[in-house]
């Protein structure tokens, strides 16, 4: 690992330049390095999933049950008014959004676990920016969400849901899933940075998941909710993610809020949350 005695310290070849040139190079390199660091963290997650994909399958059980049991029962009872849309068609995008929420909302606990093992400390001592570490983690949740999507699509197709498979809507679904998962994973990281222990996190995670899920348009339309809950649902990013999925996953799907607004809400929320989480991230080691 050495070039012999007196080998230069530090990683980069840029030290042969004078300081102002070095500084200019470094400024130019910042966005590139940020992207590279983020991609490295996502790559770690992909490699782990490749080594041990069992978790992906066990996590798929819940959305499958929602579709097969809850969806079938409610569709049979015609208990929820969804207009011309069959209930299972209405539900499938909602359950996909829900499954990304459930994957992402417990991401914080992985960070507490990594902190306890010392892995996180080593990441924080590296030159990678805090924001890239946070965004990398957030996008990793998106990778898991995509795996969930494959399973939900399979089950939904088997149940006769009128799915759209054209490339453009599929690409939109991928972006919406990654954005939605990243939003909730970052939210989860923020909570982890504040509560710091697994036990407290589990309690808070449970408290947050249910309101986020039920105060949204995932399993019933907002129109049937009491006014106060409607406001809550409209402040919930899950609603906008579900709206995108309902528009793009189904043949002839229509958006309640308009896709530009949906994507803007998710992107804006993600940027704010990443900024907050990057600020709080180092506190998790205390």
């Amino acid at each position, binding site marked *: 690992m*050495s070039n012999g005695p007196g080998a*230069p310290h530090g*990683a980069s070849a840029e030290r042969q330049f004078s300081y102002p040139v070095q500084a200019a190079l470094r400024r130019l390199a910042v966005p590139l390095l940020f992207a590279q660091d983020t991609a490295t963290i996502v790559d770690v997650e992909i*490699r782990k999933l490749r080594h041990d994909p069992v978790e992906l399958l066990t996590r798929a059980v819940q959305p499958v049950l929602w579709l097969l049991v809850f969806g079938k029962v409610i569709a049979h009872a015609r208990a929820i008014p969804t207009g011309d849309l069959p209930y299972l068609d209405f539900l499938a995008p909602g359950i996909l959004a829900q499954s990304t929420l459930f994957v992402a909302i417990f991401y914080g606990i992985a960070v507490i676990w990594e902190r306890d093992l*010392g892995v996180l*400390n080593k990441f924080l001592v590296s030159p990678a920016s805090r924001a890239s570490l946070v965004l990398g983690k957030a996008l990793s949740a998106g990778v898991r969400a995509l795996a969930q999507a494959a399973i939900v699509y399979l089950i939904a197709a088997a149940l006769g849901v009128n799915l759209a498979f054209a490339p453009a809507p599929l690409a939109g679904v991928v972006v919406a899933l990654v954005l939605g998962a990243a939003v909730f994973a970052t939210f989860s990281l923020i909570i982890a940075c504040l509560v710091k222990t697994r036990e407290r996190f589990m309690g808070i995670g449970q408290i947050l998941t249910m309101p986020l899920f039920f105060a949204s348009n995932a399993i019933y339309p907002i129109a049937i909710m009491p006014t106060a809950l409607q406001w809550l649902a409209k402040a919930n990013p899950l609603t906008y993610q579900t709206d995108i999925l309902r528009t793009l996953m189904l043949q002839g799907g229509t958006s309640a809020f308009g896709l530009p607004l949906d994507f803007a809400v998710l992107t804006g929320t993600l940027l704010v949350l990443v900024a907050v989480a990057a600020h709080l991230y180092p506190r998790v080691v205390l």
Partner: protein
Amino acid sequence: METRGLTRRFGELLAVDHLDLSVPQGMVFGLLGRNGAGKTTTIKMLTTLLAPTEGTARIAGFDIGTQPARVRRLVGYVPQLLSADGALTALENLLVFARLYHIPRAQRRTRIDAALVSVGLQDAAHKLVRDFSGGMIRRLEIVQSMLHRPAVLFLDEPTIGLDPVARHGIWEQLRNLIAQEGTTLFLTTHDMEEADELCGQVAIMHRGTVVVHGTPEELKARLGPNANLDDVFVAYSAATEETEEGALRDVQRTRRTARRLG
């Protein structure tokens, strides 16, 4: 590396109290002390994981408070806990850090391969780290923290929980590092034999301050002709009850590491 009045409080607790240390380049410096004495907090401040409440430190000329990004490029860190990622292979563990330290792509594989060979892990490169022994994980972690050739390597109790053979293996590896790279080593340990074997200078920390420092030989000579470093440690830090906050957490962490090592 130099600290000036380095201080860290946690609420009422003064974990590190106006620490003044100076470690010349290429030195192996051992920070000794009981659980809760402030050793790990000191390392966390020097590696920019924790901001000092007061005072400052400079590493290779860069200030930990105002130039943390520069400092991070110049230091390596091996935490007390076994922190290689068990869900990745040895090669992947190294690759991740080669990328995070922005080692140019053309050099990554050469450095990683050389690192694996230097600690005899080349045949285990593609095995998951969770199947490694404690000694193998530590060896991997040390080369992982050295991939970017840091000027200062911080090791928090590098051989805790290891069997004697593995422990001597790690010492050998650290000696090679010093000989080949001229790296400054800053380590904490409870193992006085380790301090005696490796360190050119030691300091004993008690309740956040350094109570004595010097070469191991000087410190032993102060207590008499037959004294060893254990005697020095007891003489300077055992006089009080274990009342420091954080002591329980330290013991729990140590046990957790020992459990992982099996």
